[in-house]
Each structure stands twice: as C-alpha cells, then as structure tokens.
C-alpha cells in the first residue's frame, strides 16, 4: 500500500473514532477520493469492528440502544393507542397519483426553472463561503500549522493525536458545536429578522454551520497528511504558508474538492428547507404549492429536485475517481463560473451586513432574547426534550432499516445481470426521490394516514434519512473488499453463510457509524418537522417563531444544543466501544 493510500485509510478511521461530528459520510466523501480504487480503508475499519462487536463494552451499548429504541417506541404510542388513519389513504394516493401528471405548462416550467436557479445559486454561494471559511479555519485549526511550524530542527517528533490535546479537546468540540448544532433553518429565522429580504439570509444560513464543519474536516485532512515534505521545506527555511502551499496542498486538494462537493449536496437539500421559511427558490414553491394542495405542481418541483440531486451526485462521483486531473480542473473552473453567475443572479447586498439598521435589529433581537426565558415549565421543557430524542431515535431506526434494505438491493457490481441492474437502478431512483421530498413535506403528507403526534414527524425524518443513509450504505457495499466473499464462495459456502461471514462483518461497523452519525443530525432536524404538531422542541420553537418570543427561542436553542452535544458524545463513545 502506498503511503498516500495509507494516509487515506487513516483519515477514514480517525474520523470515525473521533465521532463524525459532521463527518461520518463526510469522511467517506473525502477518504474515498483517494482510496476508492486501491485502498481498502473502509474495509479495515469495518473488519475490526466486526471482529470485536461481541466484546463486553459493545454489549452494554447494544443493551442501551435496545432500551432507547423501546422507550422511543413507547413514546410514539405504537401498541398503546391507534396510530394509523386508514380513511386518509385516498388523500395520500391522490398526491402520488399526481406524480404521473406533473404540471408541465410553459408558465410553471419557467417558474420552476427560476426557482431551481435560485436554489442552486444559494447552495453554491453558501458552499463556496463555507469552503473558504474551511480553508482558512482548517489551516488555523490544524495541529500541523501550529506544532511543526515553530519546531526547532532536531527536537523529537511532536506527539499528536486526540489524546495529546485531551484538555482542549472537549472545549474545542463544544465551541465548534455551537454554530454547527444550530440547524440551518434556525439560522435562517434569525438572519431573516436581522437582515430582512436579501439573498444573504439564505447564503449565510448555509455558510455559518457548514463553514465550521468544513473547517473541522479540512483541519483533519491536513493533519492526516504525512508531514515529511512540509517539514523538509520548513527545515530548509521556508515560511509556513509557502511550505503548506507547496508541500501539503497539492496532496490534499483532491480531497478538499471532493468534500466541497459533498457539502454542496447537503447545501442543496438545506436550501430547500430554507426556501420554506423565506429564502425563496424550490422550497418556497414547494410549500406554497402544498398549501394550495396543488399536487401536480409539487411533482414538477420534486422532479426538478431529483434531477438536480442526480446531476450533482454524478458530478461529484466523477471527481472521486483517482486521476482525471483535467476533469477536476475543468470542474473547478465550471464551479467558479457558476459561482460568479450565482452572484450576478442573486445580487446579495453586502452593504446590509454593515448597515446601521442591521446592527440595530440584531441588538434589539439580542436584548429581547437575553436573558433566556422558560417557554412554560421545566417539566414541559424536559418532556419536549425527551420527545425530541424519541423522535430522532425512531427516525434513525426507520431510516437505517429502509436504508439497509435499499442498499443491498441497490448495490451494483460489475457483472450483474440485467434484472439485478434494473432493481439496483430502481432502488437508487427511489432513494433519490425520498431524499428530494423534504422532511416538512413528508411530515405533512404522512399526516393524512398517520394520526397526529410524534409518529408522523419521526416517520418523516426516518424516510428522509433512509434516502441519505441508503446512499451511504450503498457506497460502503460498493467499496467493500470482495476477497472474503470470493474465498468463501470458492470454499463452497452457501449464500447465507457467505453473507453472514463474508459481508456482514465487513459492513456492520460502518453502517452503525453512519447511523449514529445521522442520529446527531436527526436531533437537529426535528426542528423542521415541528410544524406538524409532532411535539418536541421543534414544535415549541415553531410557536415561538410565530409569536416572536425570542427569549423563549433562546432557551429552546440552548436545549437543542445540549441535546445534540449529548448525542454527539454518546454516539462517539458508542462507536469507540463498538470497534
């Protein structure tokens, strides 16, 4: 294995170990950049976890998880009270029937195109700003920048790794958790009040949380790069910037780019949700069409979203192949051109950032919000927090369940027959579709057939996450080491034996890591299904937004931050125990 591939493998593992705080899939997005073809990075992580899954601490975590799921199921009312509403099927059916007759009038197609451009522009500018923040922040946050820069030649190699910075580790994690732990939609609500009607709202609502995540991931990529060439330049007397640009950057820029693309994919989906709260674009059109129960129009918009998702999925996949330097450069130029185009199209008014009115409104909002006030009672707040956790747990259980099935059906290998290939293609389209329908829309749709309560919200998040997880799981299966399977088959093992001993141990660890990573995100996403009276903190936040109760909002945002921190820590230790 080349040192390069080795480093990549390290990235994959370390990210997982530390808990993909905004990583899991992220790590795959960049670790695959260099390793998809030649390095069995995911496999190494997977096989180890597989072998030790039965170790003692792992068993405790399994027991804890089972209890948590049981408690969440109890909270949803399943088995205790009726939860389904069969008479609502016709309403849901008429929504899906409309898929066959989307509104294709010239007028509406023009509007859809317009909205699509707005959504692309928002996502792109948000991502570009996040990547810029990530580059600067990532370099500044990397240990390589600080440690070796000031190191006198001849002194021993610096001690690195998470343990060496244990005192600062938790603090850093908390500090970075704040912008990241606040959902884009909440940033959007805050920025809309302060900045008013300007594209800046959507751009910044994406760029703030994404920028922090990107910085963190970039810092890690930089630190996982073997330091030899960088050290050599430093020793030769080069400055840190110069050494970084010549020695480190050329080796990692493919990874940085791949991760940027992954972020863009996330941004596209978030931009839709932001559109629903005022940023415009496809989200705005989608939710207003829904309010008018114009299903045919909704499908036109959903198809636009699917096409968009597919297009960028293909694009970023094409960049993950090693080599193809020219195509990468062309993509970069294309991205730059699109960025300039987006700026000209949206024309964000940067003067707003410094205008007196903005600061006045920000000050007024802060004055309103501080000190935070209790929405009702501590007991209510705790109850809502518990409901939020239950919803997120159910969402992940449902999402992983569907995701695993879809991944095994959707995995496509060289040499598959036409039937197998067709099933795989169908699965991918399905996953793309359920990802394209945003959680709030899913929630409102499910409300036709599932009685109100936490369940429709949890199922909505579950379906949406199935779309995301299914894709990640498929990737794991496709990059899996086939050798154990082949050798088992050659030894005459049956299908089930091959699956249980050849496939499962390799992928179970990765699947679990991804599911745990999405759990943390699902906690934040409960905010966007709050609209359906699903209970939990999202519901509280929604009514506070409606009544402009900023001090109550602050309390709920803090509560959500704490929850997301708890889940982050829990899932990080679960993953550690699991390996």
């Amino acid at each position, binding site marked *: 294995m080349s040192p390069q591939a080795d480093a990549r493998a390290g990235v994959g593992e370390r990210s997982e170990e530390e808990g993909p705080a905004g990583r899991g899939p992220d790590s795959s997005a960049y670790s695959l950049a260099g390793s998809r073809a030649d390095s069995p990075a995911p496999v190494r992580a997977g096989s180890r976890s597989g072998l030790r899954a039965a170790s003692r601490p792992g068993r405790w975590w399994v027991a804890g998880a089972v209890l948590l799921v049981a408690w969440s199921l109890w909270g949803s009312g399943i088995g205790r009270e009726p939860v389904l*509403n069969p*008479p609502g099927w016709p*309403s849901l059916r008429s929504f899906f029937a409309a898929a066959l007759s989307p509104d294709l009038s010239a007028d509406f197609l023009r509007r859809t195109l317009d909205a699509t451009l707005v959504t692309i522009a928002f996502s792109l*500018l948000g991502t*570009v*700003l996040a990547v*810029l923040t990530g*580059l600067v922040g990532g370099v500044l946050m990397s240990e390589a920048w600080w440690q070796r820069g000031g190191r006198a030649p001849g002194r021993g190699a610096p001690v690195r790794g998470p343990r060496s910075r244990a005192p600062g580790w938790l603090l850093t994690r908390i500090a970075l958790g704040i912008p990241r732990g606040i959902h884009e939609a909440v940033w959007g609500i805050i920025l*809309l*009040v*302060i900045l*008013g*009607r300007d594209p800046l709202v959507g751009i910044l609502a994406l760029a703030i949380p994404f920028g922090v995540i990107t910085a963190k991931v970039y810092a890690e990529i930089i630190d996982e790069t073997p330091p030899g060439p960088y050290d050599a330049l430093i020793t030769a007397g080069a*400055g840190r910037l110069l050494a970084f*640009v*010549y020695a480190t*950057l050329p080796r990692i*820029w493919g990874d940085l780019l791949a991760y940027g693309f992954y972020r863009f994919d996330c941004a596209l989906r978030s931009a839709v949700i932001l559109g*629903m709260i*005022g940023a415009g674009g496809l*989200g*705005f059109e989608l*939710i*207003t*069409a829904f*309010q*008018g*129960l*114009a299903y045919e129009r909704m499908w036109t918009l959903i198809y636009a979203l699917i096409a968009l998702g597919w297009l960028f999925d293909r694009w970023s996949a094409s960049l993950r192949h090693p080599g193809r330097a020219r195509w990468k450069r062309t993509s*970069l130029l294309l*991205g*730059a051109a699109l*960025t*300039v185009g987006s*700026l000209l199209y949206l024309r*964000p008014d*940067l*003067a707003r950032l410094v*205008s*007196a*009115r903005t600061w006045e*409104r920000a000050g007024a909002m802060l004055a*309103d919000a501080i000190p935070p006030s209790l929405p009702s009672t501590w007991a209510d707040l705790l109850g809502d927090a518990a409901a939020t956790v239950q919803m997120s747990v159910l969402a992940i259980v449902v999402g992983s369940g569907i995701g695993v099935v879809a991944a095994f059906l959707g995995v496509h290998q060289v040499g598959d027959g036409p039937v197998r290939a067709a099933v795989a293609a169908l699965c991918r389209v399905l996953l793309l579709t359920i990802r394209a329908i945003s959680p709030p829309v899913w929630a*409102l749709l499910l*409300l*036709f*057939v599932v*009685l*109100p*309560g936490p369940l429709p919200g949890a199922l909505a998040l579950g379906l949406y996450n199935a779309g995301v997880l299914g894709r990640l799981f498929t990737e794991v299966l496709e990059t899996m080491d086939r050798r154990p399977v082949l050798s088992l088959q050659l030894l005459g093992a049956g299908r089930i034996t091959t699956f249980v001993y050849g496939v499962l141990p390799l992928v179970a660890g990765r699947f679990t890591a991804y599911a745990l990573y999405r759990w943390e995100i699902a906690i934040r996403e409960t905010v966007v299904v709050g*609209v359906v*009276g699903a*209970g939990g903190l999202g519901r509280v936040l*929604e*009514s*506070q937004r*409606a*009544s*402009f*109760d900023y001090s109550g909002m602050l309390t709920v945002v803090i509560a959500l931050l704490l929850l997301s921190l708890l889940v982050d820590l829990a899932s990080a230790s679960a993953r550690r125990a699991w390996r």
Partner: protein
Amino acid sequence: MLTRRAALARLALTGAAVTGVGLTASCSTGGGDGSADGGGAGGGSGQPLRISAIPDQDPDALTEREEAFAAHLASVLDIDVEYVPVPDYAASVSLFGAGDLDLVFYGGLTGVQAQLQNPEATIVAQRDIDPSFTSVFIANAEAGVSPVDSVEGLSVMAGKRFTFGSETSTSGRLMPSYFLSQAGVAESDLAGEPGFSGSHDSTIELVTSGSYEAGALNSQVWQARMEEGSIDTDKVIEVLVSPEFHDYHWLLRGDADERFGDGFTQQLTDAMLTMHESEEGRAIAEFYGAQSFIPAKAEDYQQIEEVARELGLIG
C-alpha cells in the same frame, strides 16, 4: 524559485480559485448594488412601493390579486409598485419590521403583531367585509360531532383531535381558539396537541381525511370551496359559523412619507378608500372578495390583541 508570490499564485490555482473569484465578485456586486444609501432598504428614493400579503390562500390567486392591486396603485399614485410574495405569516411580519415591505395586507393578528413591533406604522384601510368576519368550525362525519347553534355548543370539541390553520392566522387559529375557550375548551383540552395545518385548504383536507376529527378555518375560503363543489360533504360537515370579529387590514410603514414624499400616506389612504368609485377599482376590490375598502382604526383590533395576549401569541 520558491517565492511567496509563486506560492500564492499556486494557491489560487489549486482550489482557492473558486472562493477567491467568488469573494471579489461579491464585493464588486455588493458595492455597486444599493450600498449607496448605507441604510439597507431605508432611505433610498426611486425605490418602488413594495406591497405584500400574508399567504392565506392559493399562491396563484394571491399573485394575480396583488399584481392587479399593484398595477392599480401604480397608475393612481404614479409611482413604481412591486408585489413581494412571502412564504409564511411570521416571515411577513419580520420583513415588514426589517423595512423590506411597505404596505402589507395583514390578517388581524399578524397586523397587530406588526403594529406592536413597529408602533409608527399606519393602519390604512380594511375591506367592507372585514368588520364582520367569521370562522367556521368543521368536523369529520365519523367524528360524532353534529352541528351546534351557539358558541357554547363547541364544548363537543373537547377530547377531539383538532387542527387549526396557520399558527398566527386570525380566522384559522386565534378567534377559533378564543371561541373554544368560551365554550370551556382550552387548547390543552383537545386530544393531543392541536395541529397547525399551515393553510385553510390543508385544514379542510386533513379533516376530510380524518387525521383530525375537527378543525376551524376562514369562512370565506370554506364558502368558496363549497361553491366550487370541491368539498366532499359526505365526509366533512359544517359545525358552526362563529360570531363576527374584525380581521384583515392594510398596514403601511411609518417612514412612507419620508420615502415617497410628504402626504403620501394620505394620498394612499384616499386612493384606497375611493377605489370603488371607478370601474377598474371595483374590479380590484372584487379580487379581494369585497365591494369597497373602508377606514380602519387601531381600536378595531383591541379584542384581537387581548385574545392574542391570553394565548401568548404576542412576544
């Protein structure tokens, strides 16, 4: 030769190019676009009058109505008028406060919220139908609720799954909640948490489907859907038309005179109150389901404010 400049050039080539170009371009765009007045939206002359309305119905009908209204105002007042669509009620109030909307057709509650946040704003007018607005309570046919003839009768809603419309809708949430409480049914006496369907049409759909056993909405929308014949009367029944209350009105920003010239507020008010005198104006009023627009005053919305405070809808 390894120089700092060469290093930076390389940096630009390999990745930061995108962001570099982006930032430069955004600076130049931002600089050229509206930064002159320094105060964001405020202060600039030659800006159009930005009108808007809360999204309480089919967006196409809304756009058609507001654009017709914009065109009419533009011709009568001889200024540029632009319609700005907004996705939800709260966003509309926020944008009014941020100075990005000048004249908004608010519901009773959103109007009160916007007025409280912007005390200098002026109530311009209301429709002739607004002083006697009503909500309608509906129920799923299977829910075991029969029509009642007084507000007290609404006590049948206790223990039912009940959905309102938008959270800050006057006829879809505020007043229905108030009438329910008069019948002794607090929001906490409903089965589970009350729903917020997001729109009057969605309320009808959700009650028809049976997910919610009952709901309340704007009578105007209910009537219109009845006339269209789009309601399945086997599945959903009318329970009660509520007593009358004040609802929609137009709110104008307090800095309108400053921006559009002294006396603008008066000119606009006059234009609206005399709208029904011209053929074209009557057509506009008809878009709003009205015959004419009439004067409105802050006291008309006192009751709404009180109820809103009780429900904690005013922060």
